[in-house]
C-alpha cells in the first residue's frame, strides 16, 4: 500500500499537447490504421492497398500541416521545450519532421504499386513507416538522451521489420536479419554512451549537460569523451557513415526498393537530426574534441562511398554506396560546426530526400516483378523503351553527381561553402574530388541506359538485342512521385531561396538552445 501511495505522488510533467501535434498525428494515424485494418474483409487485398496508401499519405501530410502551424507560431511562442524539458519545439525539429514526413510520403506512394506488383497484402509496411517516422520525430525533437534513445529504438525496430517485409524473398529476410543484428549492436553502443555521459555529467537532459559543462571543468574527461565517441558510433550507424557502413550495401540491396528509399531518406534524416542536436549543440564546448572524429568519419565516408561504388554492378548497391558518399558530404557540413554548417546539412537532407525518392522511384519501377532486376544490364536500352523514365533517372543521377541547376549541386555547394567558411578548405576539396569519382558511377548508369550495352568496356555489337528491358509498367502513384521529385529537383536548383531561407530559419533556434 505504501508503494502505491508513493506512486501517487510522482509528479508527472504537464504536457503541452499542441506542441506535440506532429508526433501525435503520426502516432494516432498509425494506431487508427492498425485498428481498422483488422476490421477490413480479408478478401481482395489489392482493393485496400490504395486506401492504405491514401491514409498514410494523409497522415504524413497532416504531420506536415501540424509542423507548419507550429512553425508559424514560432515567432510568438519562441523556442521551447515541453514534457519536462525532454522534447523541443524549435525550427530545427519542425524542419526535420517535415523532411521525415516527406520520406514517408515518398515511400508510401512507391509502396502502393510495389505491393500490387508483388502480390503482397496488408497494411504492415504502411504501419511500419508511420511507426518508424514517429520514432524519427522523437529523435528530431528529443532534448534528453534517454528520450533520444527511445526515438532511435522506435525508428530502428520498425525499420528492421520493414527490411524483411517482402516475406517470400529470401534476400529481404537476410537483409532484415543483418540490419537487426548490426543495428542492435549499434544501439547498445549508443546506450552505453549515454551511460558514460551520465556518469561524467550526472544528467541525461541535454540542456542540463550543456549547463553542467559550461559551469564546471571536468578533471578527467575520459569518461565523457568515450561517451561522445560511442554516441557517434550509434549515429554513424544510422546515417550509414563509414566505417559503420558495412550493413548498408547488403540491406539496401535486399530490402524492398520502396523501403530502401525510406531508409535512405527518413532514417538518415532522423540520424542526422540526433547527431546535430547531441554533438553540435550539446557538446559545442567540446568541439575541438569531436570535430576531428567527424572529419575522419566524413573523409572515410566520402572515399569509401565513392571508390567502392565504382566496382559495383548492382544499381541498388551502387545507390547504397552513393548514399554513404552523400552522408560524407553532410558530415562535411556538420564538421564545420557553425550555423552555416547546420543550414547546409538541413538543406542537403531536404534535397537529398527528394532526389533519392525519385531515384528509387525509378529503381522500383525498373526492378519489375520479383524486385530482382537491378543489374546494370537491366538498365540497358532503357532510354529507347522508356525515354521519360530514363530522362527522369538521368536528372536524378546528375543531381546526385552535383550538376548545376539541380538541387543536388546547391546542396554540395552549401556544404562545401560551410566547411570552407569554417576554415577547412582541404575537406571541401576532398569532398569535391570524391564527387568526381562518384560521378563515374552515375554516368555508368546513364551510359547503360542511353548507349544500350551493359558496360562501357563491353563490345559495341551487344546493343538492344541482348539488353532485356521489356516495357516496364510504372504505376500511377510511382509516376506521380517521380514527376514531383523531378519538378522539385530542378525547381530548387533554379530557385533555391525559399528552401535556403527556411533551412536558415530552422537553425538559429537550435544553436540558441545551447545557451540556456
Amino acid at each position, binding site marked *: 500500500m505504501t508503494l502505491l501511495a508513493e506512486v501517487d505522488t510522482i509528479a508527472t510533467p504537464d504536457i503541452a499537447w499542441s506542441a506535440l501535434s506532429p508526433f501525435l498525428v503520426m502516432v494516432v494515424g498509425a494506431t487508427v490504421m492498425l485498428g481498422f485494418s483488422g476490421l477490413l474483409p480479408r478478401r481482395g487485398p489489392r482493393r485496400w492497398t490504395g486506401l492504405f496508401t491514401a491514409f498514410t499519405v494523409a497522415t504524413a501530410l497532416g504531420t506536415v500541416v501540424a509542423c507548419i502551424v507550429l512553425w508559424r507560431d514560432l515567432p510568438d511562442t519562441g523556442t521551447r521545450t515541453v514534457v519536462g524539458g525532454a522534447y523541443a519545439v524549435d525550427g530545427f525539429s519542425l524542419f526535420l519532421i517535415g523532411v521525415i514526413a516527406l520520406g514517408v510520403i515518398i515511400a508510401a506512394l512507391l509502396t502502393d504499386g510495389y505491393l500490387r506488383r508483388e502480390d503482397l497484402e496488408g497494411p504492415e509496411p504502411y504501419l511500419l513507416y508511420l511507426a518508424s517516422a514517429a520514432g524519427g520525430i522523437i529523435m528530431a525533437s528529443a532534448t534528453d538522451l534517454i528520450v533520444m534513445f527511445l526515438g532511435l529504438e522506435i525508428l530502428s525496430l520498425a525499420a528492421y521489420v520493414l527490411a524483411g517485409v517482402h516475406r517470400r524473398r529470401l534476400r529481404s529476410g537476410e537483409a532484415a536479419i543483418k540490419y537487426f543484428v548490426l543495428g542492435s549492436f549499434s544501439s547498445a553502443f549508443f546506450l552505453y554512451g549515454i551511460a558514460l555521459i551520465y556518469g561524467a555529467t550526472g544528467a541525461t537532459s541535454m540542456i542540463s549537460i550543456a549547463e553542467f559543462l559550461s559551469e564546471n571543468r571536468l578533471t578527467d574527461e575520459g569518461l565523457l569523451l568515450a561517451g561522445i565517441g560511442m554516441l557517434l558510433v550509434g549515429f554513424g550507424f544510422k546515417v550509414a557513415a563509414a566505417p559503420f557502413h558495412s550493413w548498408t550495401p547488403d540491406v539496401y540491396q535486399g530490402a524492398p526498393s520502396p523501403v530502401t528509399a525510406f531508409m535512405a531518406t527518413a532514417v538518415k534524416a532522423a540520424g542526422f537530426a540526433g547527431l546535430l542536436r547531441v554533438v553540435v549543440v550539446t557538446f559545442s564546448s567540446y568541439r575541438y574534441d569531436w570535430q576531428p572524429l567527424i572529419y575522419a568519419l566524413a573523409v572515410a565516408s566520402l572515399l569509401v562511398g565513392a571508390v567502392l561504388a565504382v566496382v559495383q554492378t548492382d544499381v541498388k548497391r551502387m545507390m547504397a554506396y552513393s548514399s554513404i558518399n552523400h552522408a560524407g558530404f553532410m558530415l562535411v557540413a556538420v564538421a564545420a560546426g557553425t550555423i552555416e554548417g547546420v543550414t547546409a546539412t538541413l538543406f542537403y537532407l531536404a534535397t537529398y530526400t527528394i532526389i533519392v525518392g525519385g531515384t528509387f522511384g525509378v529503381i522500383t519501377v525498373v526492378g519489375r516483378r520479383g524486385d530482382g532486376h537491378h543489374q546494370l544490364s537491366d538498365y540497358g536500352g532503357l532510354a529507347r523503351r522508356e525515354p521519360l523514365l530514363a530522362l527522369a533517372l538521368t536528372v536524378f543521377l546528375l543531381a546526385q553527381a552535383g550538376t*548545376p*541547376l539541380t538541387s543536388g549541386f546547391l546542396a554540395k555547394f552549401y556544404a562545401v561553402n560551410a566547411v570552407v567558411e569554417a576554415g577547412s578548405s582541404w575537406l571541401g576539396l576532398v569532398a569535391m574530388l570524391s564527387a568526381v569519382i562518384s*560521378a563515374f558511377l552515375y*554516368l555508368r548508369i546513364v551510359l547503360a541506359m*542511353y548507349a544500350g550495352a551493359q558496360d562501357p568496356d563491353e563490345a559495341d555489337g551487344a546493343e538492344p538485342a541482348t539488353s532485356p528491358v521489356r516495357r516496364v509498367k510504372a504505376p500511377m502513384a510511382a509516376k506521380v512521385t517521380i514527376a514531383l521529385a523531378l519538378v522539385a529537383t530542378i525547381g530548387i536548383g533554379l530557385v533555391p531561396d525559399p528552401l535556403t531561407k527556411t533551412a536558415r530559419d530552422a537553425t538559429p533556434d537550435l544553436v540558441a538552445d545551447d545557451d540556456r
Partner: protein
Amino acid sequence: MTPFLVAAAEGGGASLDFPILTTMVALPAVGALVVAVLSGRRPELCRLVALVFSVITGALTVGTLVAFRGADAGFQMIEKTTWISDLDISWHLGVDGISLFLLVMTGLLFPIAIIGAPAARDEKQFLAWLLLLEAGCLGVFLALDLFLFFVMFEIVLVPMYFLISGWGHAERRYAAMKFFLYTMFGSAFMLVGLIATAVLHGRATGELTFNLVTIANDQGSIATSSARWLFLAFAAAFAIKVPVWPLHTWLPDAHTEAPTAGSVILAGVMLKLGTYGFLRFGLYLFPEASAWFAPVMVTLGTVGIIYGAIAATMQKDLKRLVAYSSVAHLGFIILGTFSLTTQGLQGSVLQMVNHGISTGALFLLVGMISDRRHTREIAQLKGLQKVAPVFAGVFTLVMLSSLGLPGLNGFVGEFLILLGSFTSARWWSVVAASGVILAAVYLLWAYQRTFHGEPDADNEGFAEMNVREGLVMAPLLGLIVFLGVYPKPVLERIEPSVVALVAHVEANSDREEPDVNQLGPDARPDTYTRGREVLEEHRGGEEELGSAEEEGE
C-alpha cells in the same frame, strides 16, 4: 528581327531596356525545350526549329556587336538580378571587348554546326542537346558572377557528354566518360577555389559576395599567398579545359570520337571556355598571381605548341591530327595571354576567334571526308584533289589559315602573340615561332598524302562539295579572308578592354609591360602610347606586318 536590331543600334548599349544578353542565353535553352517536345518522327521540322532558334541567337550576338561601344573598356549592357540572396549570388551578365567576339563566333558556329553536320539518327535529341550547349557556352562568356560562371562552365558538360556518347564513333563511351570526368576533376578545384575566394574577400571586407567585378576591383582583400593558391585552383580547371600540356590527354579522344558537330563546337567554342577563363578569372581576378605564375604558364604554353605539333605530325587519323593541332594552337593562346602584354593579349583574343573559325571549318571538312569515305585514315585517302577540286581548294584555304599564312586570319593572331611574347618572354617566343613551321609540316604533309597523287579505286568516287556544304563553308571562308586582310575593326574593339586588363595587372603586381618599339633597358614608359599608334598603322596591310616582324627579329 530587323526592327529590333535597329533599336539595339539606336539604343547605344548600356541603357538598353531589352535584356539582350539574358535573351541570348535563354533563347537556345527555350529552343532546346521546344525541340524536345516536337515529334521525333519529323526530323526536318526539328531541324528547322533548331535552326531558327540558333539563327535568332546568332542575330542577337551580332546585335550585341552593333550595340557595343567600341571605345569603352568596361563591361557593357550589364544585367543583374539577385538569384540567391543570402550569399549575394546574382544573375549578372555583361560583355566587354574580350568576350564580344567570342559571343559572335559562338553565335555563328552553332547554326553552321546544325546545318553542316546533321546527326545520323535521333536528330531531335541531338539538336536539343546542341541548343542547350549553346545556351551554356554563351552563359560562360557573359557571366560576371563567380557562381553563375561555375554553373555555366559545368552545365556545358552534360549536353557535350550526351553528344559524344550518343552520336560519336566507335570509342565514344570511353571518350565521353573521360571528357566528363577530366573536366569535372578540374572543376572540383575551381568550386572550392571560388568559394574560398568569396569567403576570403567577404572576411576582409565584411560583405560576402560572388560578384566578379567587386572582388576583382578589391585587390588586396585577399592575401598574396592565398591569391596564388586560389589562382592555382582556378587554373586547374581552365588548364584542363583549354587544355594546357600536360593535361591535354582527354582532348584527342573526345575530339576524335565526337560527331562532327560535336567536334566543331568542342574545338571552336568549348576550348575557349578555358582560355577565356584564364583571362577573366586568372588575369582579372588574380593579377598578381597571374604575373607570378606567368613564367610557368608561358613555358607550358610553349611546350604545348611544340608537343602538339610533333604529335599531330605522327597521327594516322585525319581527325586526330586536327585535334592535336588544337593543342598547339591553344598553346599559342596561352603564350599570348601570359605574355601579359597588350599585343599578346589582343592576339590571344583574336586567335581564340580565329581558331574557332579555322579549326571548326577543318573539323567540318574532315567530317565531310569521313561521311563520304567512312574512314579518316590518311593512308586510305589518296588523290582527292583530282576528283574533287573545289573541295580541295576549300580545304587548302582553311588549312593555310590554320598554319598561319599571311593574308589569312591565323597569321594576324599568331603574329600579335609572338610580338607580344617576344617583348616579355623572348626565348619562349623564339621557340614558339618554330611551332608555326611545324604546323606547316604536319598540315602540308597531310594534305599531300590525302589530296595529291592519282586517286585509287576507293577514292575515285569521292563526291565533289555540294551546294549545302558550300553554303556552310562560305561564311567561314569569308571570315578567314576578311580577318586576315582587315582585322582592324575587330582589334580596335578588343583593344580598350585588353589595355585596361594589362593596366589592371600592372597596377596590382610589380610587372611592367615592356615597350614594343624600344626594347631593352632604355625603354621609357612615355613612349607607350606612341608605340600602340605605330602598331595600329601597321595593322592595315599584311606586308607591313611582315616587315615589322623582320624588324622585330
